[in-house]
C-alpha cells in the first residue's frame, strides 16, 4: 500500500459525510435519522457528519419507497456525489415498498432498481442505533483502499 493511500485511509476512517434524501416515505424514518443527531447517540464521536448536501457527501441515506416525482432526480442526486460513495437504504420502504406496495399504488420499489444500494437497514422505522451501526459498518468496506482497488 502506498503512503498516499494509507494517509487517505486514515483520513477517511474518521470523516464520513452523510446526506439523506427522502423519496417518498411516511416521515417516520426521517425523524429517526434526525434523532441520530441528538446528543444521546452523538454520531460526531464516530466522525459522521450529517451535511445534507450531495456534493459534499460520502454516504447517501435513501429513505422511502420510490415515487414518480423522483424518476430522474434521484439519479441526478446520486451522480452529484463524488467518489468514493455508497448508498444505504433506510427502512422497509426502499427495500420492498413496505405496506405501500399494493394494487393502485403510485410507488415503484425497490430503490435498488434506480441507484446501486450498498446496504439495507430493515425496520419500520429502524432504530437510530441500527442506522448508525449500518453507516459505520459500510464505510470501511467502501472507502478503505479505494484508489488501489479501482486500479
Amino acid at each position: 500500500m502506498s503512503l498516499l493511500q494509507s494517509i487517505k485511509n486514515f483520513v477517511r476512517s474518521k470523516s464520513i459525510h452523510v446526506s439523506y434524501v427522502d423519496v417518498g416515505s411516511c416521515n417516520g424514518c426521517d425523524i429517526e435519522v434526525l434523532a441520530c443527531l441528538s446528543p444521546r447517540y452523538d454520531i460526531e464521536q464516530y466522525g459522521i457528519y450529517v451535511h445534507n448536501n450531495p456534493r459534499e457527501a460520502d454516504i447517501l441515506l435513501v429513505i422511502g419507497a420510490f415515487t414518480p416525482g423522483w424518476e430522474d432526480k434521484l439519479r441526478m442526486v446520486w451522480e452529484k456525489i463524488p467518489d468514493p460513495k455508497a448508498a444505504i437504504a433506510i427502512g422497509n420502504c426502499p427495500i420492498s415498498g413496505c405496506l405501500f406496495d399494493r394494487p393502485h399504488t403510485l410507488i415503484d420499489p425497490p430503490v435498488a432498481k434506480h441507484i446501486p444500494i450498498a446496504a439495507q437497514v430493515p425496520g419500520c422505522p429502524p432504530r437510530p442505533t441500527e442506522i448508525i451501526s449500518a453507516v459505520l459498518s459500510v464505510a470501511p468496506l467502501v472507502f478503505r483502499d479505494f484508489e488501489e482497488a479501482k486500479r
Partner: protein
Amino acid sequence: MKRTVDVSIPLGPVHPCFKEPARVKCETRGEYVIGAEVELGYMKKGIERIMRGRPWQEVMFLAERVCGICSVIHNMVYIEALEANSSIPVPERAALLRVIVNELDRMQSHILANFSYCYTIEHETLAMYLLDIRERVMDELERITGARVTCAYIVPGGVRFDLRSEDDLHLRASLAAIEEEMTRYMQMFATGPLIALRSRGIGILTKDAAREAGAVGPTARASGMPETDRRLLHPTYRKIGFSPVSRDEGDNYARIMVRFDEVLASIGLIRTCLDLLQPGPIRGGGIPGAGEIAYSGEAPRGELSYFIRTDEAGRVLDIAIQTPSIMNIEACCHAMLVGVASLADVSSTFVSADPCIACTER
C-alpha cells in the same frame, strides 16, 4: 400591474434545512421576497387509493403511516371515526390512556419542530438541547406503547396495552424532568438577543390573513385564533378541562413560543389524566360496521379530518383525508413569505410553519 422580478430563486427539493422534499420558488427583487410558490409532488404515494376496498384492520396500519411524526393522532382519529360510526363504547381508562399517548406524541412533534427551527436559524446549541429532551419523550412513548414511531396503540373499543404502576412512576418522573428543562430552554429562546433578531417581526401572519388562508394549529394560534383548537370539542379533553394557548404577534417567534407553551400544557394534561386514572378494563371490544362519517381531531399541526364510508363487513369503501399542513403551507407562501427581507429568512419562516410534506401529499 406589471411586477419587476429580478430573479426567481428555487430552494430544494434536497435542501440542508428541509427534512422532506419540497421546492420553494421565491420571486425576489434583490434579496427582498415579493412572492413565493411551493411546488409539491415528490412524496405522492397514493395512500387513499390503496386504502379503498380494504378491511378496516389493514387501513388502520396504513392510516398511521400517512404521517410518521404524528402517527398517534392519525390512528386516533381513524379509530374514533369508526367508533362513532358503529357506536362502540370506550372504557373510561382507555379514553384517558389515549389522551396520554396523544399528548406525548404532540410533545415530541412540537419539540422536533422547534429543533428544526433552531437548527435553521443556526442556533445549534438550543437545537441539540431540544433534540436530547425529545429522546426522553420518545422513551416514555416506547415504554407505554411498545414502539417509538408507528405504534398502532389505539384499537376500536380501547387501547392495546395497559399502563402499569411502574410506568406511571417513570412517566411522572420524566415529566418533571422534561418540564424543568423545557422551562429553561423556553427562557433561553424568549430572552436570546440573537434569536430575537432572527425571529421577532419576521414572517408575520396577521389574524385576517390567517383566517383567509384557513390556517390551523399552532400557526393559527400564534396569530390569535385559539378557537381553531379541535381539542375543545373532544369529549375526553372537555372532561379534563382543556384550554388552548394563543399569542397575538403572528411572527416566527410567536409560532415557536406557542409550541413551547403547548408542550408545557401537554405535560399538565398528562398529569391530570394520570391523577384521574382508575383501575378498570382497557378494551371493551366491538366490531366496526356499515356507515358514513366525517370526523376531525387536533393533530400537532392543526385540524385533521377523516371522511370514511364502510360496508357491513367493515371494508373501507371510500376514504378522504384532509391534513393540516396543506393549509399552513398555503398560508406560508401567500402571507408569511411575502415581504421577507432576506433569503436567509425564507427557509426559517417556511420551517416555522412546521410543514409536514409526507401527510400533505400522502
